[in-house]
């Protein structure tokens, strides 16, 4: 099967525009950098959150990533897409923060932990589902989380994700596969619990 380099479910910004904004930002144009931050804020925050597990640390890490990117703009190759370059920096910032905070993100959480706590009858379905998914995500190794979020949420190709996590495309495909399977199993278990109750 061939890798379909899909445009993704999310509207992707033109890399030419990004490159131009990056060039202006590198020359000291704060407005241009602000435009880049605005474009990638959502992606960077979601990626950081998938690595760190909570919104506050994720925002700190995403901010660290943006500021590191600003300081390193001269190393950005404008012939390549800006998103993977930026998100790699954000992923590194989030991973560094996770190490510093000693977040137990890499420790596997028992699958029944996903369904423990208040049952679906006690909470709003939507937030319970969200919590279950969040918990299921934390059971995955960080690289699988990054891969599935960038592929299924942000619409990046395997090749682009490979640049972000610095592994081969084959490894990214494998990571996406394993992450999807684990998440679907966890969500199916949650749905089963909900139907039983």
């Amino acid at each position, binding site marked *: *099967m*061939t*890798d*379909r380099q*899909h445009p*993704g*479910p999310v509207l992707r910004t033109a890399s030419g525009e990004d490159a131009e904004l990056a060039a202006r930002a590198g020359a000291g144009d*704060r407005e241009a*950098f*602000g435009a880049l*931050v*605005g474009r990638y*804020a*959502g992606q960077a*925050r*979601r990626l950081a*959150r*998938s690595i760190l597990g909570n*919104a506050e640390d*994720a*925002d700190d890490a*995403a*901010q660290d990533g*943006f*500021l590191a990117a*600003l*300081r390193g703009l001269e190393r950005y190759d404008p012939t390549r897409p800006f998103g993977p370059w930026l998100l790699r920096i954000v992923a590194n910032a989030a991973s560094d923060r996770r190490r510093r905070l000693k977040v137990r993100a890499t420790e596997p959480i028992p699958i029944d932990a996903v369904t423990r706590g208040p049952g679906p009858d006690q909470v709003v379905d939507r937030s319970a*589902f*969200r919590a279950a*998914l*969040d918990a299921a*995500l934390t059971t995955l190794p960080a690289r699988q989380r990054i891969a*599935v*979020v960038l*592929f*299924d*949420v942000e*619409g990046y190709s*395997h090749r682009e994700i490979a640049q972000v996590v610095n592994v081969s495309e084959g490894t990214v*495909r494998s990571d*996406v*596969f*394993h992450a*999807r*399977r684990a*998440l*679907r199993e966890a*969500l199916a278990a949650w749905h089963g619990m909900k139907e039983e109750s």
Partner: protein
Amino acid sequence: MNAFDYRPDEFLGKALREALSSPDDVAFTRRVMAAIPEATGSESWWEVLGDWARPGVAAALVALAAAGAWLADRGAPGPQVPQTDELVAVASESLSARSLLASQTLPEFNVELVLGGSGER
């Protein structure tokens, strides 16, 4: 769709997006922009001076208060005894060496005493 599918999983993607998204990207963008000067050390000179101004003024006030307290503790000065140098200086002001040499009259006795008493001039 199965886990091998190379197309994005719309359902899973939407669910993950909802689970991971934080509100207010605009506020986050403002926060990042506000952190730039500190992160890049690119504050303008007047911003730097502004930062220094408050602690500088505070330090100056503390120094002034300390100096005032020290001066107050010294109390009133006692009666001043004129020093030889001062007397010579006073005498020299009224009767300089040039005026002594150029004078047609003899120098006054008390001025000679003062000048001789200094022992070195």
